C-alpha cells in the first residue's frame, strides 16, 4: 500500500476504464499511474472494488470526484462525504481531486459539471465547502478548472485569480486541465497562454488532457464542447508544452471517457504525454 505522504509521480497517467484492466496489467507502456472516478467505487463489493485493490498494488492511484458539487448553493451531501472518507481511508490514494462546479441542487443530482459565477459570495461558499472536504478526509485536495461555454454577467473575478484566492484561503492545490483552458479560451475569446500565465502554477498537483467536440453558437462562432471522447488535438499538446516549460514536470493525465478506444490508442496518447514531460527545457 502507498505511503500517505506519497504524491502522484511527475509522469504520464490515464483515466482508468474497466475494459482496459487486463491490457494495463499486461503492458502499461508509459503509464505510471491511474485515475478513477470516486463515485464508481462506492459500491459494497464485486468486480469494481476487486479490480481497484489489484491495480492499487501496482500503480499510484488518483481519486477524482465528480459528484461532490463543491460549487453548489446548498450544503454538501453528508452521506456522500462519508462515502468519500471511507474510500480515501481504505485506498489511501496518492491524490484526491474535485471540480470547481456544481451538480446537485435541491437534492437532485444532474450528472454534469455546471458553472458558477465568480463573485465574493461564491468564493466564500466554495472555500467553506473545500475546508469541509479537507477536514473530513484529512488531506489536501486539488480543485480543477472547468470548461466554460458561457460567462456570468455578475462575475467580478477572473477564473485564474478566483482559483488562486481559493488556494490561499483553504490551502488546497489545483488540477490544471489544459484542454478545459483551450475549450474555455476558444468559447469565451481569451488567450489560453495568457490564462496559463495568470494561473498559480506552483499550486498545481496534476495536469489533465482530453479530447473535445466542435460545434457552433447562434452566430456561427466556434463552440467547443469538453467530451473526453476523442484524441487530444495538437493545439492542446502545444499548450501542454507551454505550461510544462513554465511549471516544470507535473503528473499528466489523459482522460477518455466516452467512445473509449482500444488500449493501444489510449496508451499512445499517454506515450505522447510522457514525451512532452521528457523534453521540458532545462
Amino acid at each position, binding site marked *: 500500500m502507498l505511503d500517505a505522504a506519497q504524491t502522484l509521480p511527475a509522469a504520464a497517467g490515464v483515466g482508468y476504464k474497466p475494459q482496459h484492466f487486463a491490457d494495463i496489467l499486461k503492458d502499461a507502456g508509459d503509464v505510471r499511474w491511474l485515475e478513477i472516478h470516486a463515485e464508481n467505487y462506492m459500491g459494497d463489493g464485486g468486480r469494481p472494488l476487486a479490480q481497484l485493490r489489484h491495480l492499487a498494488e501496482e500503480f499510484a492511484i488518483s481519486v477524482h470526484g465528480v459528484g461532490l458539487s463543491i460549487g453548489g448553493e446548498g450544503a454538501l451531501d453528508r452521506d456522500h462525504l462519508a462515502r468519500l472518507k471511507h474510500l480515501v481511508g481504505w485506498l489511501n490514494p496518492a491524490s484526491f481531486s474535485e471540480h470547481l462546479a456544481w451538480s446537485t*441542487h435541491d437534492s437532485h443530482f444532474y450528472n454534469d459539471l455546471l458553472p458558477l459565477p465568480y463573485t465574493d459570495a461564491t468564493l466564500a461558499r466554495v472555500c467553506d465547502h473545500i475546508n469541509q472536504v479537507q477536514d473530513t478526509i484529512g488531506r489536501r485536495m486539488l480543485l480543477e478548472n472547468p470548461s466554460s461555454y458561457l460567462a456570468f*454577467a455578475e462575475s467580478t473575478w477572473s477564473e485564474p485569480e478566483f482559483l488562486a484566492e481559493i488556494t490561499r484561503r483553504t490551502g488546497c492545490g489545483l488540477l490544471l486541465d489544459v484542454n478545459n483552458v483551450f475549450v474555455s479560451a476558444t468559447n469565451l475569446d481569451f488567450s489560453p497562454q495568457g490564462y496559463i500565465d495568470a494561473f498559480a502554477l506552483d499550486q498545481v498537483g496534476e495536469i489533465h488532457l482530453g479530447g473535445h467536440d466542435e460545434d457552433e453558437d447562434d452566430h456561427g462562432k466556434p463552440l467547443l464542447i469538453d467530451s473526453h471522447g476523442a484524441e487530444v488535438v495538437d493545439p492542446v499538446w502545444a499548450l501542454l508544452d507551454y505550461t510544462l516549460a513554465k511549471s516544470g514536470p507535473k503528473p499528466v493525465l489523459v482522460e477518455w471517457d466516452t467512445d473509449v478506444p482500444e488500449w493501444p490508442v489510449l496508451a499512445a496518447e499517454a506515450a505522447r504525454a510522457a514525451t512532452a514531460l521528457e523534453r521540458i527545457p532545462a
Partner: protein
Amino acid sequence: MSVSQTDFTRAMMDANQPVPEGLLDASGGPAGRRFSVYRNNVAVSLTEAMHSAFPLIGKLLGKQNLDGLAGLYLRAHPPSSPLMMHYGAEFPEFLAGMEQLKHLGYLPDAARLDLALRRAYHAGDATPVDPAQLGALAPDALMGARLSFAPAMQVLRSPWPLFDIWRFNTEEDAPKPRHEAQDILITRPEFDPVVQHLPAGGADWIDAMNRGATLEGALSTIHAQHPDFDLSHVLALLLQGGAITHLDSKG
C-alpha cells in the same frame, strides 16, 4: 443580474423555458444556444446511464424507445444521489404507469430484473461455505440447520415467464417464453451475476430461511402448497452460485 441555481436548473430541465438573463456569450450578448450544451449534457449522460442500467429493457423495446423513455424518466425522477449505480430505482413503477405500455405487462418485472442484476454486481463480497460441509452432515443435522445467504443473492417473484423472457433475449437459440409464472434466483459466484429459474415454492422457502427457520421448518411452511418441492435442486442452485455463506447446524 444574478442567476440562481434554481433559475439555472429550471431552464436546463425544460427547453421551453427561456435561457436565464445574465448568462453571456464571448461578446457580452445573450448565451443563447450555448446554454443548450448543459441541457444536452444532462439528457445524454442520464440517458446513457439508463441504457447501462436496463440492458434487458433495451433489448425488449429497442434503443430508440428506451432513449425516449429515459428522456421522460429523467424529468419525472431526476437522480437523488451522485451514485449512478443507484439511478433508475423507480423505473419499474414508472413503466407500470405508462398507459401506452400497458399491453407489455411484463416490462416492470423485466426492469426489476435489470435492477436486481446491478445490485448483485455491486453487492458486498462474502465467502461461501464449502459444499462438502453440507454433504458431511447427517440427514437429521442437515434438516435442523439454518443458513445465511450472500448479499448478492436475490429472489424475484413474477406472474410472468420472467426467466424465459430473460433467456430469450440474452441467449442465442433460446426457446420462446412459456405461458407460466416464473420466479428468479440471482447469485454471484465470483463477479458476474447468474440468473436461474427458481422453481415454485423456492421463493417462499428462501423467505422462511431468511427469517431464521431451519431447513425442515422452512419446508413445512411450504409443503401444503408445494408437495413436490425439490429441496436438493434449490440447494444445488444456491451452492453453485456461492450464495450460502454460513451454515449453523447446532440447532
